[in-house]
């Protein structure tokens, strides 16, 4: 057998692609919780009556009552149905905020980092400003003029959420723009748009992904907190924060109306945080392996 044949006989070298979640307990756990919560969301939608369905005769049914696994609230609405709707609402708001704020933040951050000068100055002062004003004041004031709806809520939260992206992307861009490949591209006469979109954008995408996944948890808390205060999502849409506020007065009488949606919310936030953390670890590990 020739040497060539031996090489053929050896196991083929596979590309350096690792199974994405291998050894990633955090990430897997987070995804598992998220999927489980989404399964609850799907099941609730499919198998349960609408969360709006009232049954005044059956108010404050305890968990485990026939037809109401997690009990009912003071209008006899099914808590589980509300939770499963609440999961979708929470995720929808989180998705909306993350998409809007990351797109805006990345665009601004890239420009500020790459062009520097006045744009950069303005951005950084804006960041300072946003940190100096408690965002709740903005929300409270906005609530006085705007009609609360999911869209306004998403826009409001996005209005204070895009700055971290801008800041992060700016700092990464500042580093990247001095890297060889960018300088080469610049010398080769590539247009600014091309450098920004073709070279810098990919290089910031991983950090943005990590930040976005970590931000989801905060957005979930904001959404529920504002809904709790009556400034966020309200019927006909079903937010976990809203039902907690509704159940608050009868906490003693019917703990499940507060405790169970709160626990569901905590689980969602936990899942988001686990996934974010796992993603960050994954990316960091890549970086470490590459350096070793």
């Amino acid at each position, binding site marked *: 057998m020739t040497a060539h044949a031996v090489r053929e006989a050896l196991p083929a070298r596979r590309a350096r692609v690792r199974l994405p979640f291998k050894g990633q307990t955090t990430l897997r756990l987070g995804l598992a919780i998220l999927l489980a919560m989404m399964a609850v969301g799907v099941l609730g939608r499919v198998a349960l009556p609408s969360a709006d369905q009232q049954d005044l005769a059956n108010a404050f049914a305890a968990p485990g009552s026939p037809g109401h696994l997690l009990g009912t609230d003071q209008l006899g609405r099914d808590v589980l149905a509300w939770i499963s709707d609440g999961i979708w609402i929470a995720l929808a708001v989180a998705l909306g905020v993350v998409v809007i704020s990351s797109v805006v933040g990345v665009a601004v951050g890239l420009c500020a980092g790459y062009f520097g000068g006045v744009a950069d100055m303005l951005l950084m*002062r804006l960041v*300072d*400003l*946003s*940190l100096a004003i*408690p965002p*709740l*004041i903005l929300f409270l004031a906005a609530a006085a003029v705007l009609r609360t709806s999911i869209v306004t809520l998403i826009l409001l939260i996005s209005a204070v959420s895009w700055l971290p992206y801008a800041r992060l992307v700016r700092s990464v861009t500042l580093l990247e723009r001095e890297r060889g490949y960018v300088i080469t591209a610049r010398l080769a006469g590539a247009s600014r748009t091309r450098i920004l979109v073709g070279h810098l954008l990919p290089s910031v995408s991983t950090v943005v992904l990590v930040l976005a996944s970590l931000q989801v948890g905060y957005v979930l808390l904001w959404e529920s907190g504002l809904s709790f205060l009556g400034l966020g999502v309200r019927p006909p849409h079903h937010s976990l924060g809203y039902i907690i506020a509704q159940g608050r007065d009868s906490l003693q009488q019917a703990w499940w109306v507060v405790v169970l949606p709160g626990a569901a919310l*905590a689980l969602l936030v*936990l899942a988001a945080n686990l996934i974010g953390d796992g993603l960050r670890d994954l990316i960091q590990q890549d970086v470490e392996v590459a350096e070793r």
Partner: protein
Amino acid sequence: MNLVRYLGWRIVQGIFVVLGAVVVSFLITNLAGNPSDVIGGGLLTPAQRAQIGHQLGYDRPVLVRLGDYVTGVLHGDFGSSWRTGQSALGLVLKALPNTLILIACAMTLALLLAVPIALYSVLRRETRVDRSARATMMLVAALPDFWIALLLVLLLSVNLGALPSIGFDSPRSLIMPALAIGLPLIPTSVRLLRAALLDVVSQDFITTLRAKGLGEGTIVTRYALKHAAGPFVTLLAMQVGWLLGGTIIVEVIFAWPGMGSLLQDAVTNHDIAVIQAAVVIVATGYVLLNLAGDVLIALMDPRIRVGAR
């Protein structure tokens, strides 16, 4: 850049931040409405309301009012609350200490737990201890603050009758609100400090310290903590505005006589002078804290203090 010029520049920036905060919040609150919406408990006719609006000057263009307001502020006049007639600044300064006490307690509580946890977690990084500490922190971070506050009231105040749930009568009143604010702060602090520490201990000069024969404990607690303190404090100082946002809801639940309650009340009643004064104070506090952080870091870091070779 030498230190004095650097600080001078930061102060100028800070003044602009405060002015910016004044302008932005003025525009937002004025957009939201003005006292004539709530004066008279709704018993006024539109003509009477318009008359009040006119007398208060709310029929002038918003930019003119803004100009007057800023001029007033520069002369130390923050206006007065239309509800109680008291000086807006006075109201804010009366509420401020209570909130500071609360935040200080919450922060102390959080740091007392967070610093050892972060140090230990970094010392034992990637071990079971570290992982379980991180898992616990992640769990705590997932709990909504209003939910914590409600459960605390239910468990500690109502069922056990152990702690006062409202107002600020005795140091014991502090316990629950400080817990409700402090608890969610712990994971944040641990995360920030742990990240700052990990960032430091992964640096080459820490390896140099190890190569000098120093123990890991010494390195983390004496050297790494010193390097991590700057970024950590900066990150924490940057959260002041957000922190106050979190205290509003807790202050309301516990009827804590602080800035949070004041602000919530002022916003619902369109008490613009009070909102403005509060925003100015918060923004100034933010700027000062960050400035202090910068100064501290500058004093610590020879690269800024001494300048380049």
